[in-house]
């Protein structure tokens, strides 16, 4: 579910970064109040556990395929929602930087899809109420399965919204949702069972770990849930009202911003450089004369794209050549030194 940079537009990426940054800042603020310093190393190591845990594939019975845990609900149950959210954020950042798993600009979207829903929304609103009457293996398992399925579906739905708002994929909305939701329901079910298994094991071996995490990080019922709901509402308004501006048919974010500033999206058309280049092009370019000028207006568009393609190819060669040249010069210098 990690989104790469190429799958979001700057507008959507920026919006999600802002939303996630807000949630991260709020969590950090909450942690400052409630967390003792002893928990900081624990959060670090737990982040590493989730990271390592995601690399262990388990077999899914009867299918021959395998899956791995995501870990949002697991972390929230062991650490409490706010430390868990910060931990997930750190894991996602490291994955983005070192493993090309999700992009740097898409980081906001990824934190939101995989961290926010699980830790700050589903955990307090679904997981906690289910186990409220007291911990036992059945309740833990049920709570885990329901929570993981819900969190994953919400995340998958957000991925659909974000790519569509970015105008990246041509998949019709209904088809896309129809593909993403069922598969994530299945994944969620399996991950929920495994998460439940892990939590039940921890509960049986060291019950005080789970119990203490429930007592210490108890959410003040009246405030926190309202705030979380408020955040979600704000997000819905922004997505509903704002994102439609950036749909694929419209100018992209940068052009949109330029248009608002300058009144046109085509700054370059008026520059001196462009007119110069154009006049040079008219006198020296062989492609327009050679192929396309005779074929009238229709042909010139094709001419532009062909010269663009040829230029693109040459550009790639030039770029590669430049890189090689720098290498070669460096080698020579090293040898002579």
């Amino acid at each position, binding site marked *: 579910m990690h989104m*790469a*940079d*190429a799958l979001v537009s700057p507008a959507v*990426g920026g919006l999600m970064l802002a939303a996630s940054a807000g949630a991260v800042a709020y969590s*950090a603020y909450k942690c*400052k109040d409630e967390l003792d*310093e002893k928990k*900081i*190393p*624990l959060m670090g*190591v737990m*982040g*590493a*556990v989730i990271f*390592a845990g995601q690399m*262990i594939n*388990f*077999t899914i019975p009867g299918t021959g395929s*395998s899956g791995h*845990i995501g870990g949002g609900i697991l972390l929230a149950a*062991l650490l409490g929602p706010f430390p868990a959210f*910060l*931990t997930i*954020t*750190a*894991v996602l*950042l490291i994955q983005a*930087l*070192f*493993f*090309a*798993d999700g992009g*740097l*600009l898409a980081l906001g979207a990824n934190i939101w899809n995989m961290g926010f829903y699980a830790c700050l929304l589903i955990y307090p609103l679904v997981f906690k109420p289910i186990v409220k009457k007291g911990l036992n293996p059945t309740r833990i398992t049920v709570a885990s399965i329901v929570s993981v399925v819900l969190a994953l579906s919400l995340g998958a739905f957000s991925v659909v919204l974000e790519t569509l708002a970015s105008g*990246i*994929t041509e998949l019709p909305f209904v088809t896309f949702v129809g593909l993403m939701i069922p598969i994530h329901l299945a994944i969620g079910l399996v991950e929920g069972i495994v998460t439940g298994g*892990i939590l039940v094991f*921890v509960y049986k071996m060291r019950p005080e770990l789970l119990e203490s995490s429930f007592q210490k990080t108890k959410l003040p019922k009246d405030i926190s849930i309202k705030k979380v709901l408020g955040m979600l509402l704000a997000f819905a308004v922004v997505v509903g009202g704002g994102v439609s501006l950036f749909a694929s048919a419209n100018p992209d*974010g*940068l052009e949109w911003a330029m248009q608002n500033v300058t009144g046109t999206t085509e*700054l*370059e058309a008026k520059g001196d450089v462009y007119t110069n*280049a154009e006049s040079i*092009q008219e006198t*020296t*370019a062989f*492609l327009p004369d050679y192929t396309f000028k005779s074929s009238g207006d229709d042909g010139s568009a*094709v001419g532009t794209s062909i*010269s*663009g*393609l040829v*230029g*693109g190819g*040459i*550009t790639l060669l*030039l*770029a590669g050549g*430049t*890189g090689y040249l*720098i290498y070669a010069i460096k080698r020579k210098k090293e040898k002579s030194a």
Partner: protein
Amino acid sequence: MNTINSLEEMAEGNTIIHHLHPMVKLITTILYLVLVISFDPYNITGLMVFAFYPVILMALSEIPYKPLLKRMLVALPFSFFAGLSNIIFDQKLAMMIGTIPVSYGVISFTTIIVKTVFTVMAVLILIATTSLPQISYQLLAIKVPKIIVEQIMLTYRYISVLLEQVSNMYTAYILRAPDAKGIKMKDMGIFVGQLLLKSFDRAENIYYAMKCRGYDGNYLYAKPNKINQIDWTYLLVVGVVLLLMRFFNLSQIIGSFL
């Protein structure tokens, strides 16, 4: 699993790029990402010029390209499948190359892949020339709360330790279950549960060790260097060049000279 530190080892190189101020590198990388992904899905030729940035930076910083390309492959599948639908759903004819028809869907698909390659390269180059502690200091400098930065540093520090532990546990499991292709789902709870319990104890020990060395909730950081003239020049030159590349279709201009 054991290649995890190779990128960070590269970050200890001794080249012009490695010596640049981390903040400057962070800003130019983000500018590059924004400019690349802001391209129209059908403007593939304008995008091509952006190949210069990763190629030149890799050459200047002497990063070997093989490990970088390997990591890039990880990022491609998701973009590939997201883009694949464009070929199927957008079959309007854009142009003919010789006798081969090219649809808009194919063009936008190619753009997605090219964008993925460029953006992933840019981030990997950033990491291969800048160590995580350096980036963390910059996060502190722009007032990111301490707890988040410490969280990132500690998580990163212990990833390799725990991966080693997981690898040992996994070997032990597989030796006892020769036919299994992975860990059976019914054993997964116990497997990860064990790892969790061990990690809890480890975290406690780490805390005591930190306490013995004077930890009072505050991590001590070395002061990062100041941004000097070379850094400003780099920022200015790269910034201007990238913006020029975004707003002028250089590929087309080059192509039209021929």
